[in-house]
């Protein structure tokens, strides 16, 4: 029961964060100097055209009223019209968000699948050459600019080895469409389109590796530290003394609690993951929200930019809420006390 209260508290708090986020975005968009209507129309538009667009966008209203419009709209899932395409920003983001979601999800799975075993391996061989190698790998993962890694992968796997496609989400001749969940890998499997799945998988491989480097390293590092920390606890020694089989000791009593810190870290990593997705998507022409956002920024499409920032924040908040739930499942202390360890 305490866990339910904990989750309700976290959910309410997520709403507060979103309100704060909307205020921040509003301040950037409306209070900082700069005229959104003038920016959208360009320097050659007449003052009359600018005034017309201002009236249409509600830029003549008092700031409080403008914020109210923005916040109420956003709460109803209405992020306004794109200044350039005159289409609702929602539609544009909805069309691109699934591709970003797919890339980020696959990246997280990959980062855990590689990072956790590496961390455990390093912890089990503490201070050996394996440990040092993993440590070196994590450092390089953290300090390699994601765009540099993306470019290098593109050159190496695409142009030199001709092993993998270097741009886009599907091959031009692929008929696969993501019309069920929006996630191409899932949808092709659900429809039994195995060739489409392989094609989509080949396309996502390079962006995934480029995006996951820093996160994988971070997870490996945290896993290593937390396994070493748990293995030192008295209850592990006690379990050994009681003659509990070693695989139970390792998997149930060591690895399970050691899994909580990397999970918690993932929540904080999320922000940099979304940020880096902007760069990686651009290099691989991945048709995601980040590519859309960068285009919007270069064209000074303010409503679209606000929408992208808002959705990025929402993504972060939801991810962190889900992580809280996951931590509760792994760590009974959180479930019972209703507090984060």
């Amino acid at each position, binding site marked *: 029961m305490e866990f339910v209260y904990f989750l309700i508290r976290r959910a309410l708090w997520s709403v507060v964060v979103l309100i704060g986020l909307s205020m921040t975005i509003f301040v950037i968009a409306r209070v900082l100097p700069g005229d959104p209507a003038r920016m959208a129309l360009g320097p050659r538009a007449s003052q009359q055209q600018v005034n017309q667009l201002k009236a249409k966008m509600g830029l003549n209203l008092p700031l409080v009223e403008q914020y109210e419009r923005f916040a109420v709209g956003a709460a109803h899932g209405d992020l306004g019209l794109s200044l350039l395409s005159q289409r609702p920003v929602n539609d544009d983001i909805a069309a691109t968000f699934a591709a970003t979601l797919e890339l980020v999800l696959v990246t997280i799975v990959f980062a855990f699948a590689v990072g956790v075993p590496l961390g455990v391996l390093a912890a089990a061989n503490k201070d050996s050459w394996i440990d040092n190698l993993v440590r070196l790998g994590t450092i390089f993962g953290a300090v390699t600019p*994601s765009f540099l890694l993306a*470019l290098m992968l593109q050159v190496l796997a695409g142009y030199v080895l001709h092993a993998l496609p270097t741009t886009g989400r599907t091959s031009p001749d692929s008929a696969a469409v993501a019309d069920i969940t929006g996630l191409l890998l899932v949808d092709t499997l659900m429809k039994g389109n195995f060739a489409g799945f392989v094609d989509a998988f080949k396309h996502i491989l390079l962006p995934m590796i480029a995006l996951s480097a820093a996160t994988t390293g971070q997870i490996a590092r945290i896993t290593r530290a937390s396994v070493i920390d748990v293995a030192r606890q008295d209850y592990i020694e006690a379990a050994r003394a009681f003659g509990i089989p070693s695989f139970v000791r390792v998997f149930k009593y060591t690895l399970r609690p050691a899994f909580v810190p990397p999970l918690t870290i993932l929540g904080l990593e999320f922000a940099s993951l979304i940020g880096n997705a902007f760069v990686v998507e651009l290099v691989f022409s991945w048709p995601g929200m980040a590519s859309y956002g960068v285009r*919007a920024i270069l064209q000074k499409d303010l409503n679209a930019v606000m929408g992208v920032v808002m959705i990025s924040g929402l993504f972060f908040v939801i991810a962190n809420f889900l992580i809280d739930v996951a931590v509760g499942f792994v760590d009974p202390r959180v479930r019972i006390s209703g507090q984060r360890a």
Partner: protein
Amino acid sequence: MSAAITPGGRRWRRFRRNPTAVIGLAIVLVVLFAAAFAPWISPYPSHVGAVVNFRARHQPPSLHYLFGTDNVGRDIFSRVLFGYRISLLLAGAVLGVAVPVGVALGLIAGYFGGWVETIIMRVNDISLAIPPLVMALAVTTVLTPSLLHSMLAIAALWWTWHTRLIYSITRTLRHQEFIEAAETLGASKLHILFRELLPNCASAILVKVSLDFGFVILVGAALSYLGLGVQPPTPDLGTMVAAGADFLPERWWEALLPGAAILFVALGFNLLGDGLRDLFDVESVR
């Protein structure tokens, strides 16, 4: 070193035994040197500007042009040296604002508690929800893309990490005896915050700043790679990678060598921070 065993001397000896830390320090010193003396050590100092030398364009790396030349014939090595000035300036300015603000807020939230703590840490949570790169993108849309605006946008979010770090340290110290002793003796709040608590955070701050120098440089490079940071013809490492990417893979040096230069400086600060973390035994700092 002198024969006397001072605490500083012992630290230095432990530091020297840590190969990653020594390599990190060496890289940082090389980069600082390159940036400080760029006008004197770069082979073609005039190539920082909008110089055009079409006869020497797209030259591969050679003794004349260590890192080759770009698409208008400028020496990439010279531009990398000057690019380090911009990277260090960006990181220095961002951390120069974000660290004092973040540390002060962390001390205040951790020591006073109550509603002050609630407000500071809740604003902190909100700021964490915005990726710094995305924030910088939004700010540079409204204002014009420039070095100054990138700095402002990154600094506006970067304080959060320092606040969290100092807050967690301060909270564990708040009820320790030396703080209670100072309070009993009637020490002022300012004295307790800055003379009692702050020195106990010093090593953690040092480690964090060293690591952050690399990370801020990476965020700044990503911004200018997207064309939203430093504007040409000012030589910036991220901008140079973006310009060179058009000529991959044949003219690999134009993108990959400036990219390697970013990696080099970020690696230096990271190794140094890692070494300092071992030295001061502050495992919690990331």
